[in-house]
């Protein structure tokens, strides 16, 4: 069964990169994308995805604000935060706001595993952050 992924990130190359990684797998496909928080909110009404990959730093609405909106409006939709920021404070805030997972961009090799885990209802956090967050 295909896991439909929505990628939200203001860097086009990064979205492309995620697409390519997904294409290399059997089960993951990127079927939607956005480059601003506003676009995410607008498109999400279609409710056509199984997991959202959300960058924390986007122009306009902050990633955390978008996250909050998503978890409030679509509680059963898992959101995996994807960020350059490896500060524990961001991860803590993200989880508090209802994120299913937090992945740092320097651990991009963990992306596939993280997406799968989160799509299946689990939680995920980058190994580097785990000790800081007492998870």
């Amino acid at each position, binding site marked *: 069964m295909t896991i439909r992924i929505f990628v939200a990130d203001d*860097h086009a*190359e*990064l979205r492309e*990169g*995620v697409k*390519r*990684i997904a294409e*290399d797998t059997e089960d993951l496909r990127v079927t939607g994308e956005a480059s601003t928080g506003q676009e995410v909110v607008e498109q999400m009404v279609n409710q056509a995805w199984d997991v959202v990959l959300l960058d924390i*730093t986007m122009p306009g609405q902050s990633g955390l604000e978008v996250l909050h909106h998503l978890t409030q409006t679509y509680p059963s939709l898992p959101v995996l935060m994807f960020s*350059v*920021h*490896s*500060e*524990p*404070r961001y991860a803590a805030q993200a989880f508090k706001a209802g994120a299913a997972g937090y992945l740092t*961009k*320097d651990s*991009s*090799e963990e992306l596939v595993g993280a997406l799968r885990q989160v799509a299946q209802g689990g939680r995920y956090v980058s190994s580097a952050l785990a000790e*800081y967050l007492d998870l």
Partner: protein
Amino acid sequence: MDGPQILIIDDDEQLCKFLDQCVSSWGMTAQIIRNPLLVADEIQKNFYNLILLDVFMPDINGMDLLPRIAELSPASKVVIMTGYPDKEIAIKALRVGAVDFLEKPFTVHLFSHVVKRVLDTQRVELGYKRVHEELQRSQEELVSRTLQLETLNGKLTATNASLLAEIAERRQAEEDLRHSQTRLLNLAMHLQDRQEEERQHIAREFHDEMGQGLTILKMDVAWLAKRLRTLPQAWQDRLAAMTTQIDGLVRTVRRISTALRPEILDDLGLTAAIEWQLEEVKQRTSLAYTLLLPTQEVVVEPMCATAVFRIFQEALTNVLRHAEATAVTVRVTQDPEALLLEVVDNGKGISPDRLANGTALGLLNMRERAQLWDGDVAIQGEQGVGTTVTVRMPCGFSGMKGTS
């Protein structure tokens, strides 16, 4: 000649001689003039206490001489000698300046009486005059002295005023100095804040941009590697090397941006940041460490925590650069007054002249940072044993841990 001088003006030679003898017998001296024309010159040349004047003489009326004598020698007393009992003449003479008259012929007794009386009166008058003059002199002196005192007083008042003005000036200068110092301190603190802010900004931008770029690069390399599994091993090894290189760059980026501005300080607080720093140094240089923390959590106001952390970093850098140590012990304690940070190494010990060299940049930096917060840094070294750096900071408490 001490005694009173008497001048006898008469043309009667015998009388003159007689009178002269009388006068001499009293111990006084007399001068005789028979020619009235010589009188003016004589009384200008010499002073006579008493002038005996005959009013009836040939050539010139003695009466006419009176005003002349009064004019030329006002201090001389004139007694006229008349030949007839003529009251008119006597009164006239008294009016023009004579003090008494003698009617010829007159007895020695009368003569002596008159002379003595006139001379006594004169003496008294003189005495009185002298006293009066002295009084006047005293008065003048008093006035002069008073004037002097007033001038002096004026000067003193002026000096006093200028001294007060000077004191006021000095006070103002002191206050201006204090203001300047305060402003300087504020400026220093402001600059430190700006510096940290800028570092934060640079760190963030550097980290984020590089991070994004490297992530994308890594993804692409991984994508390539997957598709090029049929390539010769050497080529695949090259791709693997690229991935390793990128991972290295990611670590470097993280290290540099953290060095610029350790987020961990804001997120997890001072003690966590110190531990992190020690761990990082150990990974790089094999410097062993022992970290001693109090059982109660250390709570520090964020900006102060940054200052302490920076001082700690400086101290650690010094250990790495100069101490030639193998291990370091870091102790953090906190009492109601202040935060205490101790960094003890087992190196060769800081030398006294390096310590005395106040311009050694690292030491100066530490002290300056501490001073901004009313804290101080003490450094002690024991040759061959090690060096101890003690930082004392009266950090305020905010009850919040590392908030931004």
